[in-house]
């Protein structure tokens, strides 16, 4: 689980070019809204592609993605459960 979370943080920062250090992202830092990482809908689509490539986990429908794209922790849990 720890490895997944760490890798996800690295991927978020490098692939989405976030202006924040990997070590500054907490497992429960929100992805959207105030005091969040400030992702947008295009970022989510990019991350879905990245997650499929890196972890072999597919996120197929909108409802699932809305539920899991709340924090790094919630994405990591979904990856662990569906690997």
């Amino acid at each position, binding site marked *: 689980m720890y490895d997944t979370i760490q890798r996800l943080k690295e991927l978020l920062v490098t692939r989405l070019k976030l202006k924040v250090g990997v070590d500054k992202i907490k497992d429960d830092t929100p992805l959207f809204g105030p005091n969040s990482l400030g992702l947008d809908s*295009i970022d989510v*689509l*990019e991350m*879905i*592609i990245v997650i499929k490539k890196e972890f072999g986990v597919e996120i197929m429908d909108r409802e699932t993605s809305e539920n899991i794209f709340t924090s790094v922790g919630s994405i990591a849990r979904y990856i662990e459960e569906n690997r």
Partner: protein
Amino acid sequence: MSDLYPFPSEILPHSYPFILIDKIVEFEEEKRIVCLKNVSNNDEFLQGHFKNNPVMPGSLILEAMAQASGLIIGSKKSKMAYLCRVKDAKFRKPVVPGDQLIITSSLIDKLSPLYIFEAGASVGGEVVSEAGISLSF
């Protein structure tokens, strides 16, 4: 060979003077495209860019890449795709009148409505610009 391909204006929603692709040179459906743009003193954007030193604006090279990318997906879609992201754009050499700009784009990922491309532009075999281009419906 290139006569086999349609005119860019038949596929793209753009028209003169904003078509920055003269013709399609190579095309693999949903994969890859190579296009050509002859940069000429008649191109309007060179009039003031710059005074006595015409250089094709980098932003318009990006636009040409976006149009080339649009051609890859555009032929059978009825909805418009808009440029939604440009990543890691680099401009390595000025593009000037007389240059034949070869614009390439490859579709590297797609997750509807998002299409992600890697694009480049070269003159005389030398890369003048490259960028990641994303289009979204």
